[in-house]
């Protein structure tokens, strides 16, 4: 199993906090990798809100090729942060040349594009860089999006975090997703590390999606830019979420109805049965299977947790106004928010979506049997 930890806060927090929580849950992952998603950035990045940030790992040649390519497109480099490693890499972590976090200023013609087209363009650039990198094995690109930093590396989360110096003050965010990887089905590949990201949508999973192949085949033929290159069976959760929000125009409350729809007896009693029946049929190809706990962050910085239809994975959410965390295990919560009211901790079950909006006022539980918000 993997271990997940995420937090959403009204004040800025270092990613090391999340990694410490992962370390508390060390028995549940084998330290084969760590992945971080940071958003609502503070520090130097806050000055560049709205400008896309490129996150990735480069060799010197790769970096040069990337720069040339970006220059060709008219993207001007702005603020740059490279992670300076200290000492020898921890066991299992390869030595890399450049861990890059780079803000780019898009050209004028980009700024005049509609938002949808802008988003598509940014995704296209990320994919192009990824393909370039796969060709010569000189760059790995995780995200290229405003106000988003993604860091991934192979190795034990805590040791890797220290090695990469993730406690530096420039790295500070209000929404953080972190995953400690237990390598199971697929190779240790940086692209297989959670959290996965597409156009502001990010998610990570503890589990095994046994319906991966048919879902992958379906998504990758829908003509949506970015649904490709699957290295992990969990990547489709991110893309289904993206599909729900962006292609179908639905909210997070509908996500669970798509990945694990209600059975007929429950549907019949549901106030939105006609809509849900339609949704269940139309999205049957996106139904997930197997044991899975999904934690994700939406473009509006709302954070959520859902479980599979049988609730086969651990997951808990808790905190206090201003700071909430989603964790695989309670000890992860204890490590980061020891001063919360534990009686309010909640373990989402097979029908629940636990949602915390960016104001971090409360945990909202949305049960599948409840009415959906009005569709418009």
């Amino acid at each position: 199993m993997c271990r997940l930890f995420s937090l959403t806060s009204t004040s800025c927090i270092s990613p090391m906090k999340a990694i410490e929580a992962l370390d508390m849950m060390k028995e549940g992952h084998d330290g084969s990798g760590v992945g971080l998603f940071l958003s609502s950035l503070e520090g130097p990045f806050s000055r560049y809100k709205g400008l896309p940030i490129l996150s990735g790992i480069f060799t010197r040649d790769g970096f040069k090729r990337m720069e040339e390519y970006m220059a060709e497109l008219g993207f001007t480099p702005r603020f740059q942060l490279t992670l300076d490693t200290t000492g020898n890499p921890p066991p299992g972590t390869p030595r890399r040349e450049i861990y890059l976090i780079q803000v780019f200023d898009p050209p004028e013609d980009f700024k005049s594009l509609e938002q949808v087209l802008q988003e598509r363009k940014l995704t296209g650039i990320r994919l192009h860089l990824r393909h370039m990198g796969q060709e010569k094995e000189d760059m790995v690109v995780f995200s290229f999006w405003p106000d988003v930093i993604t860091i991934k590396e192979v190795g034990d989360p805590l040791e890797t975090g220290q090695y990469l110096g993730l406690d530096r003050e420039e790295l500070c965010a209000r929404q953080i997703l972190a995953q400690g990887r237990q390598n199971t089905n697929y190779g240790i590949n940086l692209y297989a590390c959670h959290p996965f990201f597409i156009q502001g949508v990010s998610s990570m999973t503890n589990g095994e999606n046994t319906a991966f192949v048919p879902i992958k085949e379906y998504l990758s033929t829908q003509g949506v830019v970015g649904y490709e290159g699957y290295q992990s069976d969990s990547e489709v959760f991110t893309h289904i979420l993206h599909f729900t929000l962006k292609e179908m125009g639905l909210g997070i409350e509908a996500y669970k109805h798509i990945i694990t729809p209600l059975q007929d007896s429950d549907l019949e009693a549901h106030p939105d049965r006609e809509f849900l029946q339609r949704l269940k049929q139309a999205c049957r190809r996106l139904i997930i299977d197997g044991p899975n706990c999904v934690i994700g962050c939406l473009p509006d910085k709302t954070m959520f947790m859902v479980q599979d239809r049988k609730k086969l994975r651990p997951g808990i959410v808790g905190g206090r106004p201003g700071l909430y965390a989603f964790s695989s295990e309670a000890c992860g919560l204890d490590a980061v928010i020891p001063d919360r009211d534990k009686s309010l901790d909640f373990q989402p079950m097979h029908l629940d979506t636990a949602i915390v909006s960016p104001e971090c006022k409360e945990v909202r539980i949305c049960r599948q049997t409840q009415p959906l918000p009005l569709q418009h």
Partner: protein
Amino acid sequence: MPTDAAITPSTLSQRDLPWQIHWDVKTCTLCGRCTAVCPVNAIELGTFRKRNIVVPFVGGREKPTSNFGVYHGIRQRTDPGYACIGCSMCNLVCPNNSIAAIKSESMDMLRFHRDRGGQPRTRGGRRNRGDSVLDQMKFMRISMLTDPALDAGRHEFELRTLLGRVLPPAKALASWKANGWTPPVREIHPLMIGSMSFGALSPNMWEGLQMGVAYLNEELGMPVRICTGEGGCPPRLLRSRFLKYVILQIASGYFGWDEIIHALPEMKEDPCAVEIKYGQGAKPGDGGLLQWHKVNKLIAAIRGVPPGVSLPSPPTHQTKYSIEEAVAKMIQSMSMAWGFRVPVYPKISASSTSLAVLNNLTRNPYASGLAIDGEDGGTGAAYNVSMDHMGHPIASNLRDCYLNLVKLGQQNELPLIAGGGAGKNGNLAANAAALIMLGASVVQIGKYIMQAGAGCLGTEGDRCNICNIGRCPKGITSQDPRLYRRLDPEKVAERVVDVYVGFDTEIRKILAPLGRSTSLPIGMSDALGIADKAVADRLAIKYAV
């Protein structure tokens, strides 16, 4: 036969026949049941002459003498027209187990003489080949220590499938918001009883199947569907609420459709779907065939034809001259007849042209699916040559079609219904699961439900297979009340229910270890493996030895 008697080219010995009757003089009571029951009169009462040697007292002066006596028993006829079919009904009725039909271990000579009067062999049944690619497939992607496997007995399983065109998600929502028309979709059990007509099957068999299906739906909540085949539908069923469990088939003879059209205003329920048959796996490119033996008054009335004549449906629909126009029109007309509330899909024989049909249907908004019937499908009557040599195996045909839909991003949008050979060797659940993982949304069965539901004697070893002449010894495909009264519809219904309930347990035993329970694993090809490299490559599944 005297040694100097004339013989003809078709004079055969018992050894030349595929089945030989072994009869035991010692235990036979001469009750005559076997000769009475034999559906093809292959055996008859025989009077045999036997020489008895009388040996006198040893040491006496008298010489041994002989005399001739007679005894009575069973004689197997060797006339090709009366060759034993191996049904073994004689053995079934024999009180002393004194008689048995044994398959000859050498090749028979009968096959060269089955075209008397220039009429090649016609028969019912199947392809008579035991091999099955589906049987060789294994389900290999089993969740072991990485994740808990599911419990087939205790966990919740959602095994239904969708019949009908499923719109892409965004379109479905748009149509819902606009309150527009959405193609009709039925949530049904993935194992469908395929098309076997009223006429091909006896009234008792048909009734039994319908009762079984009704019970499964109404008492067990299993949405099992049955297709009528081309022979219409009894008027009372058309006007009953049970019609919703029935898929009406229309084929090139349009048999029974006069009755159906007239019943339209009085229907309480819409049928589940309409299947337009363009071909069937057992005899691709050949039309339906009901031989005159079976066209009695009842059948004739339902089909709207005179009794006692053979009813060969044309190989193709007479109105069909192009798939682009005529097929589309037919699909549209059938949809229109029920106000676009009923899914309408064509059924074709598996063929190397299946892809062309599929591609066309993907562009037809009213087409609700495509049924493909492989060469291992059965039939009530066909020429032997069609059954043995025409057709395409289902596995690769289905897989090609599914992968083509994947390429178009339309998998499961147009459900593929696969048939032809599922369970041919008794492994129904495994075969059905393999077809589903290769890409089928629905699996059709015919022969299996006849064997399991009614005790059909047919096998892949050319046993019985006389469905065509109405002499079915079990009363399954006979229209003679003296024969079909042997079949109790209630018992058939019970067996149908047993088969489905057992199937559901077995399918869960396959899906649970694969970690699948939330939806039917259509196209989950990563679960499949086979110990044949060529097959693995062809089907894009794993090769494992």
